């Protein structure tokens, strides 16, 4: 990757020029896919030029991995932003805040984002991390000792994450008050079932333990699209809500007949249908005649279209502190904070799990992982087992990992107000670490992973001349 940038002294970004070459392997699958997206879209930039080249090589094909192209592009762009901020003597957070767009420049016609929480992520994240204090402290405590501390940050957005039709869900309410949720969408470990249960529970007032789930079975559930692109919650959540809503409306009109009331004057509360005006005027769900007679109410929900002419994207900013041993080039990530805008927080536990998992993967890119081919010889992959291909272990991730959601429902995006979260998390982590390493020792790491293999020669060459 090559990146050239122009900036004014006041922090206005004027131009970005980017080019990259990537290996597509032996088949066309897109080694460069979306690597330039952040350059084109993340910050206000009046001028931009990007160029990407895929090269066929005799090796395995390039395949998508959590936020395809984005962590790579962020690696270049976010380190460049750090460099520019330093050149114009501006705080990296303040510099980014100066260039936050409200519309998508990478798309034709510059459509607005439904919401952008980029500024909030930067401001709230910096506050919670203690960004300014940490920078000052590090500046003052330089010199002594061979363990150097540094802090760094980076931001990002994810190209997708708004979800889209089609999605169909079926909700059944039984006469005993229990519910069955039937949907084609899968749960690949992300907690889809938890989130969808909560949507039904919220809409119908039924306790989660009364909701049974049938899902991801081609024989018994509806057509669904795969879990990918951080779109499961915003794609399938609204369909589930619509199905629950349909059940609710049918139930209320049955109850209206029993209570001889207008169904618009009724609402659900716990296991009862009650009058909005007079809560003593009510009937238990299991006593509703229409439901008792039929035994079940079936509601079908469909995912509606996305808002016309608008873009739904999640945003992020991450902050980290590292410690570099300048004698051995060992780098320890001391703490990492992920501040994310993914619309409404549907469930805090599954949300935080995505943040911790995504950051861990980002640490993998920054610190441990790489595919090593037998270059110039057989082209075979050398590290094709789980020992030689190094995923971060629990000792490689910091004790202090913090998830700070910007809980800002995106009502224009869809009927649940949520945007995707899975992929955006892993985008800013690696450059945030690289920027922290730079802050600690004044060395720009342009290649990953940052291990003694790369950093030791750089330290030896006296990379530390260039003090941050």
């Amino acid at each position, binding site marked *: 990757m090559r990146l050239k940038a122009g900036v004014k002294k006041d922090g206005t970004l004027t131009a970005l020029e980017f080019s990259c070459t990537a290996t597509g392997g032996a088949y066309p699958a897109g080694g460069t896919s979306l690597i330039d997206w952040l350059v084109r879209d993340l910050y206000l930039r009046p001028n931009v030029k990007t160029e990407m080249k895929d090269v066929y090589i005799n090796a395995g094909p390039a395949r998508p991995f959590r936020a395809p192209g984005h962590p790579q592009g962020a690696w270049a762009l976010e380190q460049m932003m750090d460099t520019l901020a330093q050149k114009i003597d501006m705080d990296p957070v303040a510099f980014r805040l100066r260039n936050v767009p409200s519309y998508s420049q990478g798309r034709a016609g510059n459509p607005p984002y439904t919401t952008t929480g980029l500024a909030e992520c930067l401001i709230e994240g910096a506050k919670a991390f203690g960004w300014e204090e940490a920078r000052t402290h590090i500046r003052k405590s330089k010199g002594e000792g061979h363990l150097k501390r540094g802090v760094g940050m980076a931001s990002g957005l994810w190209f997708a994450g708004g979800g889209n039709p089609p999605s169909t869900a079926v909700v059944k309410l039984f006469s005993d008050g229990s519910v069955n949720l039937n949907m084609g969408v899968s749960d690949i470990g992300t907690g889809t079932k938890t989130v969808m249960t909560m949507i039904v529970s919220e809409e119908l007032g039924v306790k989660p333990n009364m909701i049974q789930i049938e899902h991801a079975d081609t024989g018994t559930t509806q057509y669904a699209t795969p879990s990918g692109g951080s779109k499961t919650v915003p794609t399938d959540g609204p369909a589930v809500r619509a199905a629950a809503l349909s059940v609710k409306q049918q139930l209320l009109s049955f109850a209206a007949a029993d209570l001889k009331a207008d169904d618009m004057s009724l609402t659900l509360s716990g296991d009862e249908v009650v009058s909005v005006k007079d809560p003593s005027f009510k009937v238990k769900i299991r006593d509703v005649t229409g439901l008792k007679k039929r035994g079940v109410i079936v509601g079908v929900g469909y995912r509606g279209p996305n808002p016309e002419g608008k873009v739904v994207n999640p945003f992020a900013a991450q902050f980290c502190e590292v410690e570099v041993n300048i004698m051995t080039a060992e780098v320890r990530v001391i703490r990492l904070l992920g501040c994310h805008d993914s619309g409404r927080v549907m469930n805090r536990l599954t949300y935080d799990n995505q943040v911790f998992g995504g950051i861990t993967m980002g640490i993998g890119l920054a610190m441990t992982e790489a595919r090593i081919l037998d270059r110039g010889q*057989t082209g075979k992959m*050398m590290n094709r087992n789980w020992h030689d291909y*190094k995923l*971060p272990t629990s000792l490689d991730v910091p004790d202090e990992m913090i998830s700070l959601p910007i809980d800002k429902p995106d009502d224009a995006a869809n009927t649940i107000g949520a945007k995707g979260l899975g992929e955006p998390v892993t985008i800013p982590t690696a450059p945030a670490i690289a920027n922290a390493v730079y802050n600690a020792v004044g060395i720009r790491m342009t290649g990953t992973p940052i291990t003694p293999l790369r950093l030791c020669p750089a330290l*030896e060459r006296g990379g530390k001349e260039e003090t941050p």
Partner: protein
Amino acid sequence: MISGFSYMKVKTIQDAVSGLAKGSARIHAGGTDLLGCLQDHVFSSDMVVSISGLKELKGTRETPEGGLSVGALNTITDISESPVIRDRYPALAQAAAQVASPQLRNQGTIGGNLCQKPRCWYYRGEFHCLRKGGDRCYAVAGESYYHCIFGGDGCYIVHPSDTAPALVAYGAAVNIIGPVGMRTVSLDHFYVSPSKDVTKETVLEPGEIVTGIVLPPPVKGLKSSYRKVRARRSWDFALAGVALSLQISEGKVTNARIVLSGAAPIPWLAFDAEKALTGSILDSDSIKRTAALTVNRALPLKHNAYKIPLFIGMIEEELINISKA
């Protein structure tokens, strides 16, 4: 896929020796390395002889001279957690604590750790290289990040064990039993460098079993430690490691052992550095000189010259720590 083999769990050492006499029999202790080798077709075996039930190879006991005898079947965790070893041979306990991962340390034995096969990824992969009886070393023109900077001669592996350098630094020996009886070999003569035989890692003859390790009594004024740098913080072999054992009397180093891991096909004695340090006071000058001398004869390959500054920095740091301790 592992190709088929017979399995025999023996009750006596004699049964083990006779079981090993046949065909391509292999010793199984904890199996953590053996099974990987069989799975990856590094070698094959028609008979696996498990010695894991041999009680006489377990436990530790004091020798009449005041040293320590450690049975080959002690797990790596046994070694790292033994109060006696932590107290008297701290470099060994530290080395053991940095081996692999907790699961592997609980299952792997010290005997197996000393006898494990190299980790060169060509050797472990589908490459019929020199060490496997082929006609070339792929590491020379290939990916040599994790290979040796000393002692390579046709083959450029690093010895994978963390415990071996610590044991060499303490002057330990191994007890061996085999078809022709028992023998004791000092650990610094236990390993075979590629210049002698590129297909062998140890002096063990077919059918020979390591029964235990003997550590001499710790001398007065001994300061020792093991330091390891790796590419991730656990479950990883050494990029560079050093076992230090310094005898210090009246502020002067009277005897120095500096043994490197991640450096050479065998635990590597840094003779020049040892000589330079012996007789001097541990101050910043002697520390700098010693660290530089550990790598003065290094011959890096295409991708591993980073190890030179790494060894220097790591050894400097560790000597400073010892001087302050």
